[in-house]
């Protein structure tokens, strides 16, 4: 904590469980009264709710026994319903639990909770919600667990529990002591007491400290912890024929040649796929190549078709935000258009699963962000009860939203069922690129009018995008009808400058002929690119400093004040200067608010030929309570470079019905040489609980770079990936 500039968290607001449950029910209850709620004004209210609400944790939080395992060696294992995919959740949860349990962080281990444990998250690991949504429930669970141990210790030691104290998992009192490990040995039945009072900020030993990741050593040793590493005894290898063309449906397959290939155990034909099971992965892959599959192709799509679909004006419009009466009549209206391409997740661990289905039970080891949905989908397809399917989640070799859809789990399960043995099956890289659930392309039209003082009088953001949140089993049925606009597509698409008298944001929904979905930060990157580039254009038009121009038009409410503080922090830390710097570089600025976390970036950029080089990024982030400042920094660094990768290099295109390219390299991504040599992260804590961290810092990066490039070259880059012409 010493290195980061932060303020001490303020005294916590009382946040009772009752209120917590009430908030949950608001989140889930939006399905009610669809007809009434789908009226525009309600839709805007709902959009505002979706933009600002803290997502509650959606799982059982009343029984500490399914959360903690205490072993004889006085170690505590936290069974996490949230999955570790690099975001550092395991470490943050361990810190939170250790403080309330009264153990040292070195006594904490974290493992994924198998679905059979009953500790099941009904939502997902995603949306930067793991720490924020478990902040309150996990402290309550850990404090309750501590109270349970104290009550047992009191019994065992014959001392009143209120005269006992705990240090590093050892209960002391009346000159006696007993460890948690010894206490649990003698317990036959636990009683769950009332939730005790939670610790005060001043009592935290681990929360707020830059504790090294709890999974650090395993990851440095190469310990097998990922879905791809999972295995079961007597395991066979499966492979599935997947389409290389979009908008195509499986018709049939000639498997006669494949059946005779070496190592082949069985060919599996299901209604929607054909698979092969063999003794080794190479034999399975070779046999798959010999299968001649026929697909019904509905239309020959080209990229120009996609560009046409995505144009603002061609879909269905939903106004998601409106203040005053925006007016764009007259020649002084400023209009700009922005584009972002199709983006691939490109996580390095391909999707895969190991499944064993026998005797009416199924066990599946899998990299999944949606344990509960994976379980119910597999159970449904197998005709099993959900309780007869045990999902054992593994560490994920990147998530980024790619593992919110897990049909690969169903395929592995069906193949295992067909051969009666465990089967491991995973995508090859080309299939990953062609069967991804992509970040949809977007088109943005922005309009504004300035008043005589050079301030914005009217402003409008139109974003047209393919589906992000819609079509996902994570949303309750009917959500699409109620919300109208895709809450994922317009994420980051609202205008944060509430001092503008007249403004609105309009989300255009279109239907694309391939699957699109969550990609780390959803619509935030593209929407912020458009809005924040446009703000820069307006500041230049008004002849104002772009940072001050923003500060002057942000409202004075709590949200606005936090954003302003973030902007000022980044500005001051970077030593913001508008225009070209003496060293041939220029700075660029942009900011965003995502899931209530404000973020601001100042980038330092040079241009050599047509190459854009980002030398330094100063990032301010205000996630509220900083549970682990080091991991917050790590998330900022990673988000910034991943965002740079998407902003400067990445692009998928549709060519003769195929999504292309299909391999790293041609799908160009940031490499070591592209990473800035300096990333300076300032952490602010202007909220009373932890908020989102893993996605918000992606927001401003594309716009900040484009704004810097304009100062160097005079070229306004309005399309991602940013290319100087």
């Amino acid at each position, binding site marked *: 904590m010493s290195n980061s500039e932060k303020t001490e968290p303020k005294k916590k607001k009382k946040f009772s469980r009752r209120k917590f449950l009430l908030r949950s029910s608001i989140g889930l209850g939006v399905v009610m009264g669809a007809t009434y709620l789908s009226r525009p004004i309600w839709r805007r209210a709902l959009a505002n709710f979706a933009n600002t609400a803290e997502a509650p944790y959606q799982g059982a939080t009343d029984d500490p026994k399914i959360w903690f395992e205490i072993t004889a060696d006085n170690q505590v294992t936290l069974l996490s319903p949230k999955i*570790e*995919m*690099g*975001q*550092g959740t395991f470490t943050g949860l361990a810190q939170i639990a250790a403080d309330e349990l009264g153990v040292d962080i070195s006594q904490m281990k974290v493992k994924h909770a198998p679905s059979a444990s009953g500790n099941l998250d009904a939502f997902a690991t995603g949306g930067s919600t793991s720490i924020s949504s478990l902040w309150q429930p996990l402290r309550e669970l850990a404090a309750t667990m501590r109270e349970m141990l104290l009550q047992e210790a009191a019994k065992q030691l014959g001392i009143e529990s209120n005269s006992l104290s705990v240090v590093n998992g050892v209960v002391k009192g009346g000159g006696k002591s007993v460890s948690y490990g010894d206490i649990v040995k003698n317990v036959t039945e636990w009683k769950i007491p009332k939730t005790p009072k939670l610790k005060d900020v001043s009592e935290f030993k681990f929360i707020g400290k830059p504790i090294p*990741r709890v*999974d*650090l*050593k*395993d*990851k*440095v*040793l*190469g*310990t*097998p*912890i*990922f879905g*791809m*590493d999972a*295995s079961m005894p007597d395991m066979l290898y499966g492979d599935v024929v997947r389409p290389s063309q979009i908008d195509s449906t499986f018709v049939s397959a000639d498997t006669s040649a494949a059946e005779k290939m070496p190592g082949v155990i069985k060919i599996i034909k299901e209604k929607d796929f054909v698979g092969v099971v063999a003794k*080794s*992965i*190479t034999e399975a892959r070779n046999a798959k190549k010999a299968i001649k599959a026929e697909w019904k192709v509905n239309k020959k799509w080209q990229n120009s078709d996609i560009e046409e679909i995505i144009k603002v004006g061609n879909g269905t419009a939903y106004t998601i935000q409106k203040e005053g009466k925006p007016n764009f009549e007259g020649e002084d209206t400023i209009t700009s258009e922005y584009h972002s391409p199709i983006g691939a*997740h*490109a*996580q*390095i*661990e*391909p999707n895969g699963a190991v499944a064993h289905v026998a005797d009416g039970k199924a066990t599946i080891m899998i990299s999944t962000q949606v344990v509960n949905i994976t379980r119910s989908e597999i159970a449904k397809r197998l005709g099993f009860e959900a309780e007869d399917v045990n999902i054992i989640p593994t*560490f*994920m*070799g*990147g*998530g980024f939203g790619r593992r919110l859809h897990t049909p690969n789990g169903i395929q592995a399960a069906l193949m295992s069922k067909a051969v009666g043995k465990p089967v491991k099956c*995973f995508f*090859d*890289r080309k299939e990953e690129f062609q069967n991804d659930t992509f970040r949809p392309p977007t088109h943005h039209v922005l309009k504004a009018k300035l008043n005589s003082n050079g301030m914005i009088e009217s402003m409008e953001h139109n974003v047209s995008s393919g589906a992000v949140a819609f079509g996902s089993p994570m949303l309750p049925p009917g959500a699409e009808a109620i919300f109208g606009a895709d809450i994922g597509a317009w994420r980051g698409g609202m205008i944060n400058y509430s001092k503008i008298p007249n403004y609105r944001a309009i989300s255009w929904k279109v239907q694309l002929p391939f699957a699109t979905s969550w990609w780390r930060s959803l619509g935030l990157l593209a929407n912020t690119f458009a809005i924040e580039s446009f703000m820069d254009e307006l500041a230049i038009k008004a002849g104002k400093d772009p940072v001050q121009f923003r500060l002057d038009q942000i409202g004075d409410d709590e949200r606005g004040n936090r954003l302003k503080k973030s902007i000022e922090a980044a500005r001051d830390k970077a030593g913001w200067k508008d225009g070209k710097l003496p060293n041939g570089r220029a700075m660029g600025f942009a900011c965003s608010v995502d899931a209530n976390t404000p973020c601001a970036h100042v980038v330092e950029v040079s241009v050599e030929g047509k190459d854009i080089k980002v030398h330094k990024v100063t990032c301010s982030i205000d996630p509220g309570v900083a549970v682990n400042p*080091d991991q917050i920094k*790590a998330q900022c*660094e*990673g*988000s*910034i*470079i*991943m965002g*740079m990768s998407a902003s400067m290099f990445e692009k998928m295109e549709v060519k003769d019905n195929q999504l292309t390219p299909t*391999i*790293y*390299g041609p799908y160009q*991504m*940031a*490499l*070591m*040489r*592209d*990473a*800035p*040599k300096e*990333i300076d992260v300032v952490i602010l804590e202007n909220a009373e609980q932890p908020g989102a961290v893993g996605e918000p810092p992606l927001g401003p990066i594309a716009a900040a770079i484009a704004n810097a490039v304009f100062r160097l070259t005079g070229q306004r880059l309005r399309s991602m990936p940013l290319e100087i012409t």
Partner: protein
Amino acid sequence: MKISFNINGAPQTVETDGNTPLLWIIRDVLDLKGTKFGCGKAACGACTIHVEGMQVRSCSYPAKLAEGKNITTIEGLSDGDNLHPVQQAWMEEIVPQCGYCQPGFMMATAALLEVNPNPTDEDIDNNIVNVCRCATYYRMRKAIHRAAEIKSANL
């Protein structure tokens, strides 16, 4: 065919089709799962191992070429409980996020330090070209410089 080689200091003989990528022999036959599959096309570097001390992408290295060679994987990088300087530096800088690509990066870095004990930023850019989707490059660069320091201090 029968193929014999040394892996992490111990002799091994496997029976396999000679064209099977060495990656799958290492992972599925020898059960050393620290070497990862990322693309199978020698593009991402997650499967990087050492063959005779040089970095090789095992997904595109047919098993038959391993005959008589000395192979090292991430499991053999440390000397028992003593972490390799690269691993020590990775711990100090808290580099990994998801961690999947990290063994490949650490193997590539270890190979670089063998031929270039004190790499410049440009040397790092030209020799460490694996792909990390969590984009931990910023800390990796610091860790590579730190590993060079640790390694030279150990000499």
